[in-house]
């Protein structure tokens, strides 16, 4: 494994609640992203995966804030300590983002080209002409046919898949080292989703990108990611290489998640859902946050919060069962 480009340690994000208290939708998340790899952050809605991604560029929407003590290191630089200008220099230049909804993530009143060119010019002293040429090249690279026509079109004149390609072209405009893709295909149809994922894969290989892929869909992850981190209730509950995670899921939540996904192959089996519902970030359960829904709950789980325990090299989980197996 190569050098880490992004290192997140003990990330906590707090939002004030109406009762004057704080909710912590992200509560102690740590992970490392290496050069050239795809790390998938998987979880259900409300688990804090999107906020985590926004925090990496300090884009957490007000009134939420990243709590002191959280560490975000990009190539050894402390992102938390950057001032506004230094932060801006990193945003879009070194770390780029692709968001879920390509319609509302592009500004409707500017053409696709204008938005790409703007990104280039924000970071490099390039003439408009040269930036435009680069934009055309980028559009071609993400598989848009007729880039000369498309570059002067507005987002509403394009289909969803095309808009997402524009978003990707824009993100790659300044050759970033890290690409954060937050549910990049959730708003798209299956056949278009496949196209977008292919492009991301290809670009990662060609450009040696480090990709943080955020998704709720385990199916997407299986063939695209090198490593997977599963989030539940503001924490990472299990992290492993993709193969290990799917073949030997260890955390009861990961196991439950995999058993509740319907499949196309193999015999039809009735699904085994996880009982109960996802908890509210303002009221995380005490002890292990999964314990009210866990089929393997022990007395200890109700009182004590399990920390990150290693099962094997590169395989961690936050569950007391890890200790049981270790013994």
């Amino acid at each position, binding site marked *: 494994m190569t050098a880490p480009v992004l290192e997140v340690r003990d990330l906590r994000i707090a939002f004030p609640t109406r009762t004057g208290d704080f909710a912590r939708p992200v509560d102690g998340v740590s992970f490392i992203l290496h050069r050239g790899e795809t790390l998938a952050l998987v979880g259900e809605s409300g688990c804090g995966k999107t906020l985590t991604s926004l925090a990496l560029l300090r884009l957490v929407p007000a009134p939420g804030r990243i709590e002191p003590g959280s560490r975000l290191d990009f190539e050894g630089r402390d992102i938390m300590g950057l001032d506004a200008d230094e932060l801006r220099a990193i945003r879009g230049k070194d770390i780029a983002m692709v968001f879920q909804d390509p319609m509302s993530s592009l500004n409707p009143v500017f053409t696709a080209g204008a938005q790409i060119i703007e990104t280039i010019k924000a970071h490099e002293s390039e003439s408009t002409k040269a930036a435009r040429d680069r934009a055309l090249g980028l559009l071609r690279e993400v598989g848009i046919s007729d880039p000369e026509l498309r570059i002067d079109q507005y987002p509403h004149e394009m289909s969803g898949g095309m808009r997402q390609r524009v978003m990707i072209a824009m993100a790659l405009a300044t050759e970033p080292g890290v690409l954060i893709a937050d549910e990049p295909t959730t708003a798209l149809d299956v056949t278009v989703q496949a*196209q977008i994922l292919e492009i991301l894969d290809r670009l990662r290989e060609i450009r040696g990108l480090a990709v943080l892929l955020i998704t709720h869909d385990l199916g997407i992850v299986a063939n695209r990611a090198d490593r997977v981190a599963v989030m539940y209730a503001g924490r990472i509950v299990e992290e492993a290489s*993709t193969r290990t995670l799917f073949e030997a899921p260890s955390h009861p939540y990961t196991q439950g998640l995999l058993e509740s996904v319907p499949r196309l192959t193999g015999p039809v089996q009735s699904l085994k859902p996880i009982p109960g519902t996802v908890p509210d970030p303002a009221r995380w359960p005490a002890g292990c946050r999964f314990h009210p829904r866990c089929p393997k709950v022990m007395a200890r789980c109700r009182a004590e919060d399990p920390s990150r325990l290693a099962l094997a090299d590169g395989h961690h989980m936050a569950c007391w069962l890890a200790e049981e197996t270790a013994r």
Partner: protein
Amino acid sequence: MSDHRGLLEVVDLVKHFRTTGLFRTTASPVRAVDGVSFTIAQGETLGLVGESGCGKSTVGRTILRLEEPTGGSVQFEGHDIFSLTPSELRTLRRRMQIVFQDPYGSLNPRMRVGRAVAEGIEIHRLAPRAEIPERVGSLLAEVGLDPDAAERYPHEFSGGQRQRIGIARALAVEPVFLVCDEPVSSLDVSVQAQVVNLLAELQRARGLSLLFIAHDLAIVRQLAQRTLVMYLGRVVETAPTESLLATPRHPYTQALISAAPEPDPTVTRSRIVLGGEPPSPSAPPSGCAFHPRCFHPKKDTRCQRERPELRQVGDSAAACHHAE
């Protein structure tokens, strides 16, 4: 499929949407549904699959006449749905119900859950007033909710619970036929499975017929004996679900199956990535609507000229000139 008597028979259903204003604009209409036919037998679950904008939801709404059709006919228990008077239609609504996709929009935010579930019973006077609370309680229990849920408002429930309430409301009038319009698409995976299992259980226990609309083939597989694949307002393939998955005959079905993400890294299928995107339903391509994206090796000019009709291939029916 114990009983092959057709409960619902849809023939050549057409629904076009027009953009209307003060002065009718004559822009070409959106051909949301463009000649769809199928039958559903008593106690059968039919899956209806396709991508967004293919018209699958419109089919569901039009056969219940929640949208007025442009053409075609629907026979339900021997009644011609499209020629019923408003009051006859209201009476027949008891027999056929719908569950919607959006768990947040499908319940009136200012109505207690109990009242929402009771509404159908009140409308059709299915029980004396005094017995309604009891009925509501047992319906809530049937979908896996506490009876005290009746006193609460929808916003106090999670998405999955709301979907259960929506199902209870539909079941309150004791329908024989239920349209499920993407009932689990906006739910989290772990909760999705709960609702899928609930629907399977209810279908068995009550002998319901279901039209299960979804974009996810894997979920349809859990419930439907037979599946219909739609593309741009038309049926491109229909077959028993297992044969559809094992031997898809239409190239679009093949692509759809291949693109479906499977949570298993060991499954390495030959990946078909379609070029282009679904065209606009207001200007469908000539001939076979799928031809601009088609990868079939035998694709020829006939595909551009001539619209393929559904024809029997094995135990499937596929609308492709070259299906085999």
